[in-house]
């Protein structure tokens, strides 16, 4: 335990970076995911194809590979990013399709008659989505969105391998310095992840208990 308390600033530094990556990624990936979901259900076939290809491609690629691409391939074509920014870009590109799929499944759970009724009073596709479909889809969508966010929290650790100082970096450095206390050090790292993920999980559970729109 002592090793954790003695090195609290280092833990907090890693924790801060993990939160930073998480926060920025959610900030960018959620709107991007909503956009991809909207494209995926849009009436224009070519937009649907673009969204489907992006979703399937990124969702089925290991996150590490996405990081490699951002870290080593982009600089070759002249785009040089900060390590932290690069990590946010990689995490955003990778996470947006998961958000998109969560949103799409919620949208699909809204009966098709709702969209038909909205269109038949003359609402455009965007108005139908914004006024009728998304408000009804949202409550069902929040729990899976939180699951994706929990997975994202853990995925930020991949940035460790790409020169970003995350919670895992804290663990690595401390373990190297204090070879005899690896177990408490790693438990400390796990603890800080739990500080983020457990409240998220409880929040999701509580929302799930609430009833969805009455039909």
């Amino acid at each position: 335990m002592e090793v954790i308390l003695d090195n609290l600033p280092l833990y907090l530094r890693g924790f801060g970076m993990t939160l930073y990556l998480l926060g920025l990624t959610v900030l960018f990936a959620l709107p991007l995911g909503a956009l991809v979901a909207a494209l995926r259900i849009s009436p224009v076939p070519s937009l649907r194809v673009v969204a489907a290809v992006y979703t399937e491609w990124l969702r089925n690629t290991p996150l590490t590979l996405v990081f490699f691409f951002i870290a080593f391939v982009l600089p070759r074509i002249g785009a040089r990013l900060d390590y932290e920014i690069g990590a946010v870009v990689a995490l955003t590109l990778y996470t947006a399709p998961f958000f998109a799929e969560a949103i799409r499944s919620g949208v699909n759970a809204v009966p098709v008659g709702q969209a038909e009724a909205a269109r038949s009073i003359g609402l455009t596709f965007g108005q139908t989505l914004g006024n009728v479909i998304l408000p009804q889809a949202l409550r069902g969508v929040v729990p899976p969105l939180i699951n994706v966010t929990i997975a994202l929290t853990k995925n930020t650790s991949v940035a460790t391998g790409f020169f970003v100082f995350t919670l895992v970096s804290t663990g690595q450095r401390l373990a190297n310095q204090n070879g005899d206390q690896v177990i408490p050090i790693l438990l400390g790292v796990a603890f800080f992840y739990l500080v983020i993920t457990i409240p998220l999980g409880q929040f999701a559970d509580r929302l799930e208990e609430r009833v969805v729109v009455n039909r």
Partner: protein
Amino acid sequence: MEPLVVLDNVNKHFGELHVLKEISTTVGRGEVVVVIGPSGSGKSTLCRAINRLETIDNGTITIDGKQLPSEGAELAKLRADVGMVFQSFNLFAHKTVLENVTLGPIKVRRKSRQEAEKRAMELLERVGVANQAKKMPAQLSGGQQQRVAIARALAMDPKLMLFDEPTSALDPEMINEVLDVITGLAKDGMTMIVVTHEMGFARKVADRLLFMADGRIVEDATPTDFFDHPASDRAKDFLSKILTH
């Protein structure tokens, strides 16, 4: 009579199934056309095709001189002028009765909330559910929900109303309250296309009756002619099965 809806040689397939076969007909302004026929005859598909909830393979559908646009803002504009009432009501489940009726006028017609609500209350009064305005759709009976759906369509001041089996999902005791509202609209001169299985209603309200079977319009007659002197064997067979009780 001035034509409002013109269908010319409309065809539609669902995969292998040819659901609409060379449909051509005209609905005049102020005319009430009732479409009847056995299940699977294409009557619902026809009704839905007129505001393009179903696409068609070929042929043309013209409403008030304009051909149906295929997508986008133009189509939305046309749909705003065509009221649609569904078998399953399809009231917006997350909005109150009043909000259901005002959504279109506010978002599409750009009316002020106050103006839209005033008109909505008049319409809810007319269909007899004004006292339910603050409730959610799920708190209403089927008959009440369907009357709200009619008010929602009327709030757009449509040129034409489409009814796709408006009473098929209702308990028997609620059918008449909905049919009475539709009959009232017909008397007021609204142009309507009504797909229904209610033969008494069809006879009473229709200016013209279309009998469909296997994707074709088999008979196009006045209700009296159709019910008393059906011309085709298909119609005779249909009537003999439903009118024996």
